[in-house]
């Protein structure tokens, strides 16, 4: 089985703060890899490196065997790595649907100067994705007005609209009310499975991890402390001490 | 055609922006002249009324307003304008609108050299004589200088006037070296660097055709740092700043005022007309009249003369516009200087008065001494010829050929 994304010996630090050091990780086809770890361990930084937002001081990242080191987030996104953010990145002055359609148009490379955005053929799909993450009810609200939880979900929907091969999610459901998040994740991961989208998600909720991840990587102070199947990793006393607690 | 209710004069002038140092005096003079005229029963018994347009409001507003006055307010004559740019802009418009347009203050010699107009007339001199006169004065009075530097505003007037002056200088005194050409931006507030440079190079002559606040600032900063003691200054427009500059303008500076008008004009200062004009104007504004005021007076004089002439030609009948325009051609009239004539290219021939500053009893600002009055005709190319080309045909002998009447300041 070939590694889809493969990071080798990544290192980066910010004025003394080590955010990554000797980080090596492979993400395989159809993986649903969970990344856990204490705050400030370097999880988001890892995603930033994989998407070309940060350039590591050492190490390499390949996607489908091609090095993506030094490629721009734009280029990497086009290759098929989509990302949802820890702090939602939305077009706040536009409605949720407009947000989605911009993503869809970009994905389908639709830039005919005079066809209205609202009439692009991808609209159906976009609306479907909004349903998937349970945001169809706010589709005509300006993103700035959304409650935190919805923002997170719309952010994921935007990434999905790009029909990625790999979907990176940074704490997808933090801030999503616990009453809903499992239903949403069920449908979401379900959809990913059937569309064979590989996913990597940073998570602090261990229940989420054990439910949806087939592999777990544990970050700590810029290192990968351990990785493996949820069952093993979540039992690991070391992990319990540094991440989960009692 | 029978007499109208009134003669409606539209005047474009600067009431905002830096050039309002000319515009407002011009406006005041216009109001004053109109009042006098109407007290005296108006032009041929018809009172005049004025409407003004602010040139400071920008070119488009100017033309829109100009049209409005002509087409909707149907004024009988327009006086436009102070800015040469605006004159160039308005002249063709006036021509098409068949509106009698008097270029009452703008200086560029190009207008009548580059196009023929029927409806446009200039009732005062233009840049060519206004630059040749100070040069001739310089050459006649202090002929032995070797170096010259110029500090002019960075816009058309500053550049054109220098082109005229320097071209002529090359012809009339080829051996002179130009050691500095500075064109600080229009409205510049600081000339320290230029002044340092001039102090370092010490040119024999320093020319500046700047005006208004720019000129005042330059003179003050120069005087403050003793630049006047090293170099002979030639300031062809400084007549309009004399009163403001007061003691900051030392003696011995060569002064011009774009024509032969001056509140102490040696030939007319004892005459009642000039005295009344000056007295009235001072009463009204608190200042001595400066050249825009005189230019306005010339425009009015020309208009009056034109009506008289036209009515006479029309044996007593009130002239229509065409007749009035016909009358303008070859018109002879007089403001508060020597008599003027409009020549065939619609450009007036006006004498030029140049002198040297001197501080005297009774004035807390320098007056003009060692005056020379040049006959305008000598300093202009024949009608239709291009000034620069004509100047290039001149040579040293020109300095002697052109004669001037000399006067001293006397109480």
């Amino acid at each position: 089985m070939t590694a889809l994304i493969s990071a080798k010996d990544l290192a980066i630090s910010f004025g003394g703060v080590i955010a990554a050091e000797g980080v090596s990780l492979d993400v395989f086809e159809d993986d649903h890899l969970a990344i856990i770890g204490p705050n400030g361990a370097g999880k988001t930084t890892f995603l930033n490196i994989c998407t070309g937002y940060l350039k590591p001081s050492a190490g390499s990242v390949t996607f489908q065997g091609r090095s993506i080191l030094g490629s721009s987030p734009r280029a990497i996104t086009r290759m098929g790595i989509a990302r949802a953010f820890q702090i939602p990145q939305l077009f706040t002055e536009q409605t949720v649907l407009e947000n989605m359609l911009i993503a869809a148009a970009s994905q389908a490379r639709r830039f005919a100067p005079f066809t209205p955005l609202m009439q692009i053929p991808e609209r159906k799909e976009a609306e479907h994705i909004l349903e998937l993450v349970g945001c169809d009810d706010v589709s005509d609200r300006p993103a700035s007005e959304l409650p935190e939880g919805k923002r997170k979900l719309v952010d994921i929907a935007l990434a999905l609209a790009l029909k990625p091969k790999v979907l990176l999610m940074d704490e997808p459901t933090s801030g999503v009310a616990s009453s809903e998040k499992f239903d949403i994740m069920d449908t979401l991961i379900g959809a990913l499975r059937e569309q064979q989208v590989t996913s990597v998600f940073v998570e602090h909720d261990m229940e989420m991890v054990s439910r949806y991840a087939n592999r777990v990587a544990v970050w700590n102070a810029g290192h990968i402390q351990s990785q493996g199947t949820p069952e093993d990793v979540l039992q690991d006393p070391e992990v319990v001490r540094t991440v989960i607690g009692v | 055609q029978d007499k109208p209710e009134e003669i409606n004069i539209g005047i474009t002038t600067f009431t905002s922006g830096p050039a309002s140092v000319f515009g407002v005096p011009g406006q005041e003079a216009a109001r004053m002249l109109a009042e006098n005229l109407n007290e005296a029963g108006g032009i041929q018994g018809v009172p005049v009324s004025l409407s003004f347009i602010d040139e400071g409001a920008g070119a488009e507003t100017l033309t829109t307003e100009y049209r409005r006055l002509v087409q909707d307010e149907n004024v009988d004559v327009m006086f436009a304008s102070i800015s040469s740019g605006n004159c160039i802009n308005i002249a063709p418009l006036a021509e098409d609108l068949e509106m009698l347009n008097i270029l009452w203050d703008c200086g560029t010699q190009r207008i009548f050299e580059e196009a023929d107009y029927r409806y446009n007339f200039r009732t005062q001199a233009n840049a060519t004589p206004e630059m040749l006169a100070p040069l001739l004065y310089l050459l006649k009075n202090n002929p032995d200088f070797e170096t010259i530097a110029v500090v002019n505003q960075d816009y058309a007037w500053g550049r054109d006037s220098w082109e005229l002056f320097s071209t002529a200088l090359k012809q009339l005194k080829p051996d002179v070296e130009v050691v500095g050409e500075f064109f600080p931006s229009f409205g510049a507030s600081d000339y320290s660097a230029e002044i340092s440079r001039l102090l370092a190079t010490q040119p024999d002559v320093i020319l500046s055709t700047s005006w208004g606040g720019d000129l005042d600032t330059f003179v003050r900063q120069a005087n403050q740092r003793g630049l006047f003691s090293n170099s002979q200054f030639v300031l062809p427009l400084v007549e309009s700043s004399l009163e403001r500059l007061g003691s900051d303008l030392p003696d011995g500076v060569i002064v011009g005022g774009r024509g032969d008008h001056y509140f102490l004009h040696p030939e007319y200062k004892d005459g009642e007309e000039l005295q009344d004009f000056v007295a009235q104007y001072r009463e009204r504004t608190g200042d001595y009249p400066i050249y825009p005021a005189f230019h306005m007076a010339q425009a009015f004089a020309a208009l009056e003369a034109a009506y008289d002439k036209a009515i006479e030609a029309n044996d007593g009948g009130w002239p229509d516009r065409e007749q009035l325009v016909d009358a303008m051609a070859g018109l002879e009239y007089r403001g508060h200087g020597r008599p003027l004539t409009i020549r065939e290219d619609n450009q007036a021939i006006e004498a030029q008065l140049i002198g040297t500053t001197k501080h005297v009893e009774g004035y807390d600002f320098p007056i003009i001494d060692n005056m020379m009055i040049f006959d305008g005709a000598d300093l202009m190319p024949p009608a239709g010829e291009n000034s620069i080309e004509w100047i290039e045909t001149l040579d040293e002998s020109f300095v002697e050929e052109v004669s001037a009447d000399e006067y001293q300041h006397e109480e």
Partner: protein
Amino acid sequence: MSLQILVLTVLDGIAYGSLVFLVAVGLTLVFGVMRILNVAHGSFYALGAYAAASLGLVLSAYGISAWFAYPLFIVAAVAVGVSVGGLMERFILRRIYVREEYLQLLVTFAIFMILDNVQRLVWGVQPYFYTEPLSLMGNVTIVGIPYTAYQVIFLPLVALFILFGLRWFLRKTLAGSLIVAVTEDREAATAIGINARKVFFLTFIIGTTLASLGGALASPTTSVLPGMGAEMIVLSFAVAATAGLGQIGGAAIAALLIGLGRSSAVFFMPELEVVVPYLIMVIVLLFRPEGLFGKTTARKI
């Protein structure tokens, strides 16, 4: 000779630069900190100059020693900055802080027109002068060239004083921190007990006062006349941008660069003089897109 020229270039550069800094620093503060494109800044410069000149002329009218002019300048500046600036903030700007930022541009532009006109109505169109403070300090001769002490010594000193004063104020004082906080996030600031309105009010007044102080200090060196404000607007914006948002130190360096650039242009390439500020801005921004001392904004993701 060439050495002399060099010295002169530097001196003139410093003299002019100081003046530019004094005018631009207020804008750098108001724009950089409050993000208000205050086009009316130029008017405050002009008003300050007019006020100073008028007061000065009153002095000389009553034959009072021109030494009093220097404190009077400050009085004039504060009077203008606080009264006009205060009214402007309180009754107009305050109503639009929360609106589309560019509305502020519109408002200040309108106010600029109004003030410009008011100046003409109050002071007429003839240039004003009040040069005593300049003559009073006399000249100093450097490498054989006379300079006015006012321009080559006094103004640079004042500029330095303002520079370090402001930096200290913004960095070390509570008020400074408040300003910075309110600018970054008005609501969060309110939520920790900061009176955002008051802070904006004070900041704006400081800015306008500095502008009119610039005008007051400039008045002895130049003609005070209609339209003098307009020139300064662009120059100030150029400085503010070159400096980097709200960078007082940057403003000082930018102003100095502009001063030196201008004087060297006059000495070596007069034709360039007019465009110097823009060239400098372009060059700086080409290499430092956020301005000389501009900070790259906080991480977003």
